[in-house]
C-alpha cells in the first residue's frame, strides 16, 4: 500500500470508489447495518421504555491530522459520542462522511480509519452509515470528516443546560486544556515542545457510571471550543442561576499553565475533547465523585464549585489569594501576545 494516494477517480462513484469502500472502510467499521449498504441504515430501538432520541452532528477539520494523544479520526468519533453522552444518551449508531483531498496518502487514510475503529470500540458505538467524496488537490487539507450520531435517552434521565439548581455541586472530570495545547504544539508554529497529550476520549462510559449512582444529574457539558469558561457561562444563563468557582481547585497541568503564561492564553478558554463538566444535587456529589474517580477517564475528577441563587447568569471566580472576579465566555479567538 506504500506510496499509494487518493485520486479524483476514487470519488467518481465507479469501480475505484467501490474498491475504496470495500477495501478500507467496510473492514474497518464492519457491522450488519453498514454491511447492508442500503441507502439508509435501519436501526432497531434498544429499549421500548425509552421514547426519546438524541441526535447530533459535528465536522472535523483539525490541523495537523495527527497529534499526540489522537488524530482527526479519533476526534470525529469521540466528539459525536460525547455530544450524545452529554444528553445522557447511549449511542445507537453513527454516520461518518469523508471529504478526501486528492493526493492524500492511502497510508494516512488507513491510520485514521484504524483510529476511528479503535475509538468506536472504546465507546461501544457502531458506524452504520457513511459517504466519501474526493476534491481536487488544494481544495481541502488532507481530509475532513463529518460525523453524526443518534442515541437513546434512558427514561429517568433529564439532563439539560437549563436544569442546574441552586445548591448544585460543580465537577470537572480531569485537568483542562490538554487537547488544545497538544494540538497547538503539534502544529509547530510556535516552536514549542512538550509532552502534553490530547485528552481526546469517548465519555459515554464515564457518564453511564455517573448516572448509575445519580440518575438525576442536572447538567452535563463537554467543554470543547470556548472551554470551561464558556460552558459554565452557558449553563448559568440557561438555568438562570449563579455559580461560584474556587479557582484553586480547577485542575490544570503545570505544562499547560506554562504554555498559557508564555502565549498569554487563559486556560479556562482552552478546548477539551475528553473532559466533562457536571452539575448535580449536593447530596449525590460524593457518590458521583467516587464513581468518576474509579473510572479510567475520571481519575482526576474534582469538585470546583457550587451553584447559587444569587448573581444569576454570572460565573464568579474565587481566586487563590482570596479575591474574586467574573469569568466571561470566550470572545473571538485567543491570539498569542507580545510580552
Amino acid at each position, binding site marked *: 500500500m506504500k506510496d499509494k494516494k487518493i485520486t479524483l477517480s476514487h470519488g467518481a462513484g465507479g469501480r475505484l470508489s467501490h474498491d475504496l469502500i470495500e477495501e478500507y472502510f467496510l473492514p474497518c467499521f464492519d457491522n450488519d447495518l453498514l454491511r447492508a449498504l442500503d441507502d439508509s441504515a435501519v436501526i432497531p430501538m434498544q429499549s421500548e421504555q425509552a421514547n426519546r432520541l438524541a441526535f447530533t452532528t459535528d465536522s472535523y477539520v483539525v490541523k495537523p491530522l495527527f497529534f499526540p494523544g489522537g488524530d482527526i479520526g479519533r476526534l470525529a468519533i469521540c466528539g459525536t459520542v460525547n455530544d450524545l453522552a452529554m444528553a445522557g444518551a447511549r449511542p445507537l449508531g453513527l454516520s461518518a462522511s469523508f471529504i478526501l483531498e486528492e493526493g492524500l496518502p492511502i497510508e494516512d487514510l488507513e491510520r485514521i480509519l484504524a483510529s476511528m475503529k479503535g475509538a468506536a470500540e472504546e465507546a461501544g458505538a457502531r458506524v452504520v452509515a457513511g459517504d466519501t467524496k474526493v476534491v481536487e488537490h488544494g481544495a481541502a487539507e488532507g481530509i475532513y470528516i463529518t460525523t453524526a450520531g443518534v442515541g437513546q435517552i434512558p427514561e429517568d434521565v433529564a439532563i439539560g443546560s437549563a436544569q442546574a439548581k441552586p445548591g448544585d455541586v460543580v465537577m470537572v472530570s480531569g485537568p483542562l486544556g490538554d487537547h488544545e495545547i497538544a494540538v497547538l504544539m503539534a502544529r509547530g508554529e510556535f516552536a514549542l515542545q512538550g509532552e502534553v497529550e490530547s485528552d481526546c476520549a469517548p465519555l459515554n462510559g464515564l457518564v453511564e457510571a455517573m448516572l448509575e449512582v445519580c440518575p438525576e444529574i442536572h447538567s452535563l457539558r463537554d467543554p470543547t471550543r470556548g472551554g470551561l469558561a464558556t460552558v459554565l457561562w452557558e449553563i448559568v444563563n440557561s438555568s438562570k442561576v449563579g455559580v461560584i468557582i474556587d479557582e484553586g481547585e480547577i485542575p490544570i497541568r503545570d505544562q499547560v499553565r506554562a504554555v498559557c503564561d508564555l502565549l498569554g492564553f487563559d486556560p479556562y478558554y482552552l478546548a477539551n475533547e475528553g473532559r466533562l463538566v457536571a452539575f448535580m444535587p449536593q447530596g449525590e456529589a460524593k457518590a458521583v465523585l467516587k464513581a468518576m474517580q474509579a473510572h479510567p477517564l475520571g481519575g482526576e475528577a*474534582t469538585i470546583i464549585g457550587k451553584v447559587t441563587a444569587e448573581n444569576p447568569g454570572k460565573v464568579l471566580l474565587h481566586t487563590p489569594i482570596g479575591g474574586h472576579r467574573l469569568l466571561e465566555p470566550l470572545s473571538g479567538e485567543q491570539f498569542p501576545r507580545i510580552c
Partner: protein
Amino acid sequence: MNPHKSPDEGKLAPLLLENIAALADSPMRLMEVCGTHTVAIFRSGIRSMLPPGVELISGPGCPVCVTPAGEIDRAIALSRKEEMILATFGDLMRVPGSSSSLQEERASGAAIRVILSPLDAVKIAEENPDKTVCFFGVGFETTSPAIAAAVMEAGRRGLGNFYLLSSQRLIPPAMRALLSGGGVKIDGFILPGHVSVVIGKAPYCFIAEEFGLPGAITGFEPLDILEGIYLLLRQRKEGRTEIEIQYSRVVQEEGNPRARGIMGEVFAPVDARWRGLGTIPQSGLVLREGFSQMDAAQAFDIPYAEVEDPPGCLCGEVLQGLVRPPECSLFGTGCTPEDPVGPCMVSTEGSCAAYYKYGRGAGGDER
C-alpha cells in the same frame, strides 16, 4: 486533594493585605504601568481585596495599544505588496487601522504570519528566498533585544529579503511625558518587571529624584503585586521616595548589560509617536547605519499618514490614566473585543479588554 493546586498563595496573601490595610490611612493612587500587571491584577481579583483608599490606575504599558493607527496602516500597505510575507505578533492582528486590520487583510488573501519570536521571521525569510519578508516589530525594551538579535542574525546569514518595520517604544521617556503633562494625579508607580530585567533600575530614578514619587519594580504573580503595593505604601509611611526592586529574584539593579548592548548596536533612539501621548522625544528605536538596508520604512514606499482617533474612542485618555475604561461611552456597547473600535479593547494586555473581560459587574473590581 487537587495535585495541580499552588500551596502558598492562600496563606501569604492575607498577611500582606493586613500590612497594606495598616498603612492605607489616606488615599493613594498607584499606576501600574504595564499591561501584564493590569491583567494579573484583574485575574487575581486584587482590586476586590484592597482597602478603599488604595486605587490602581492602568498606564500606557501595552505595546499594541500605544501603536498609532497610522503605523497599522503602514503594515497593511506592506502586506498588500506583491510577493510579500508580513510576519507579526498575534496581538496586532485585530487592531483597527484607518479602514482595515491585518486580520481582514489576511482573510482577503495577504500572506501574514503570526509568530512568537522575531527569529521566526528570519527563518521564514530563509525558507522563502523568492519572497520579501517583513517583520512588523512592535514592543518595549522587553522585546527589543530579541528584535535586535533577529536583525543581526539576518545580517549574518546574508538574507537580502528580510526587512524590519520598527515600531518599538521605550518606557522611561513615556513615563517622563506622562508626569510632565501633569494631567493625571499619581502617588506612586508599580513598575514593569519584564522591561526592568533589561534596563535595570537607573532609568527610573528620575521619577523619585525629579518628581518626588516612589516606584517599585514588581513581578507578575499575585503575591508580587501585593508586595509591590505594600512597598509603595511603606515608602510613604517612612517618608522615603526611591525606586525599590520587589522582583529581585529576576531583576538585577544594573539590568542586563548584554541585552542592552545588542539593542544599542542595532538601534538608535528616535522621536516616536504614541497613541494618546503624541510624539515623545527619543522614545522609539530606528535601525542604525550598517543595518538600515533592512529598514522597511526606507526600502518601500509606505508614507506615514496621521489617522484621527475614531469618534468617541477614548483610548488616548485611557492610556494616560485620565479615564477608566468604563467611563468611555463606547465601552461594552459600541466597542467590544469581538468588534473593537480602539486598540485597548483588542490587545490581551489592553486596559479596556481587561476591564471588559474581568471587571464588569464584579463588585469591587469596578473601582
